[in-house]
């Protein structure tokens, strides 16, 4: 909501045909000084746009007369972090570069994102086993525990729709990092991490089950939560949700993604 308001306000100011602000009505300095109306500090300006959000009510073409249906907001995820990252982030990044260079990688993590105090290393799919092994074994890294795999489907992230997210924990240094691997929907293959972190066994099966990401080299990549003969991968955004038939003039309750709701 606050995002939308801020955009509106800027539009008004830029509008050349609009009347000057001074004579327009009671001034509201408090609102202008409010946290959500202040410009973003320079350091946080980098963002990565993934898709656009249109309207406010989800479904299109439902006779919206409020005017809010015309809203357009970009979906901007936190952008890449710049060196120096600060704190132990630099130590981990440096050690990772050194450790993976020995294994033949020029750049271990092409993109690094730091947001809300959490660091994310975006890794190329093919490099994942090398990076993970370095993270686990190197003296200065020692990420002994993998908290598992979490799949995320970004349908608007063209060419990298399916993401696999690994949370790693170093008990020796008490640090926590995140690895993120993105693969295209057309070719969703990621090397399995089971040889490095055996705990990924069930987690990769779950991610395969829910998103259809194929973890190559996994000892037995089968469905784990859904029945073996289940068609489709339910956590994907394009998975059909199915409505509820009601016995009234052949009508049915539409599935949640086709209902009118705030988005």
């Amino acid at each position, binding site marked *: *909501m*606050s*995002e939308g308001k801020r955009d509106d306000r800027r539009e008004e100011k830029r509008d050349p045909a609009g009347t000057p602000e001074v004579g327009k009505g009671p001034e509201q300095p408090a609102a202008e000084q409010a946290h959500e109306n202040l410009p973003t500090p320079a350091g946080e300006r980098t963002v990565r746009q*993934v*898709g656009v*959000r249109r309207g406010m009510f989800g479904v299109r073409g439902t006779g919206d007369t409020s005017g809010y249906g015309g809203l357009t*907001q970009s*979906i*901007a*995820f*936190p952008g890449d972090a710049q060196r120096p990252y600060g704190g132990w982030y630099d130590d981990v990044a440096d050690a990772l570069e050194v450790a993976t260079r020995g294994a033949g990688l020029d750049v271990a993590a092409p993109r690094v994102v730091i*947001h*809300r*105090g*959490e660091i*994310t290393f975006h890794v190329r799919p093919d490099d994942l086993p090398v990076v993970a092994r370095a993270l686990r074994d190197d003296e200065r890294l020692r990420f*002994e*525990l*993998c*908290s*598992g795999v*979490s*799949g*995320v*489907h*970004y349908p608007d992230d063209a060419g990298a729709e399916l993401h696999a*997210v690994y*949370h790693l*924990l170093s*008990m020796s240094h*008490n640090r*926590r990092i*995140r690895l993120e691997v993105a693969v295209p929907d057309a070719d969703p293959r990621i090397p399995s991490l089971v040889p490095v*972190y*055996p*705990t*990924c*066994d*069930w*987690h990769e099966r*779950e991610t395969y089950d829910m998103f259809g990401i194929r973890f190559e080299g996994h000892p037995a990549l089968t*469905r*784990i*939560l*859904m*029945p073996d003969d289940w068609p489709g991968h*339910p*956590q994907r955004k394009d998975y059909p949700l199915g409505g509820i038939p009601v016995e009234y003039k052949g009508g049915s309750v539409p599935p*949640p*993604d086709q209902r009118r709701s*705030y*988005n």
Partner: protein
Amino acid sequence: MSTDYYAASSEAADGRVFTVTGQDWDSIVEGIGEGLDGDESAEERVVVNMGPQHPSTHGVLRLILELEGETVTEARCGIGYLHTGIEKNMEYRSWVQGVTFCTRMDYLAPFFNEATYCLGVERLLGIEDDVPEKAQVMRVLLMELNRISSHLVCIATGGMEIGALTVMTIGFRERELVLDLFELITGLRMNHAFIRPGGVAQDLPPGALDEIRGFVALMKKRLPEYADLCNANPVFRARLDGVGHLDLEGCLALGITGPVVRSTGYPWDLRKSEPYCGYETYDFDVQTWDTCDAYGRFRVRLAEMWESLRIVEQAADRLARLDGAPVMVADRKIAWPSQLAIGSDGMGNSLDHIRHIMGESMEALIHHFKLVTEGFRVPPGQAYVPIEGPRGELGAHVVSDGGTRPARVHFRDPSFTNLQATSVMSEGGMVADVIVAIASIDPVMGGVDR
């Protein structure tokens, strides 16, 4: 061979299939014995499918055991029987409504599910430091009470599965007291949806602190009963000692946390190493044992209940000082607009609030309507704030695309991860020890399958 419909045998492509429901293992012995007369190929090897409906598998867990006599040569788990698509459902509800869903995952630890989700949402909102102190203390209080009730169920059902029925009855007796406290504080025994993004749903009811203190005093008398009943009991010790062995290396490789890793002697506890909700300000110790077996896990849980009682006492003292303090963030764009109150027809929106929005302020009505129907927006990004659940590291990977609903919430449930240790803990052991090994992991299938 048999007229018992529930224990009939049939021929399958790769061997004979027996359906056994208990008390009728004779049919298997007979069936296998049939082949022994002059048939050298008859073998001791039997594949047993146990569950998913079985009183000893700790929930709707299916075990596929390959037995060589009474020795387990291979143990596999079949899960998914309790999969309810909670994570998918949360993507079609507002951020606040998500709490109502995730509280149902690990149904023995509802407050932990709510807390890790809310901590993730709060981190994405950037309001971690704005959550009032009283809300954090109440979260700690509820989580520690919940840890006691969860450990009690673990010990109780674990006892039941090996035939120690008294352990079960006294375990559930004490758990009931904790659930009474939950009912008093949140209104519900389970599925509370009480911890919300920004704080907790409502303030402590009058008299709650006295009830909590009374409970702590009672538990201090009752907890020694468990030690008396089990620690020197030769039958109990014989069933648990050395069973389900898993050392620290195995735990780390398999990603196992919680009492299982602490039973190897490694004092790893997220309440100490990555404190959240102000745990760094409480005085408690991380309990360990050094036997790496089921008995060690039992002792760790027993000792952790004492530590939880210590934390509950400290939290109660703080709450006594915080009488009347806010329990929700001050930001009115996030905080739920209405407060609950007891009316003539039970619990509902407070009449003061109804009067305010219906009779006094149109803006307040609009604000209430927008926040309840649309909810707040969370800035795009992802967060993972793990907490120390009763079973280990519980974390919610919360992803927002800037909408009024989560783009994705994935729960890293310790039951799911820890259950992977079934094979290494039970292969090579006796079939009766499989039950003890799994009970010592304490998987809750609602959390495993979500």
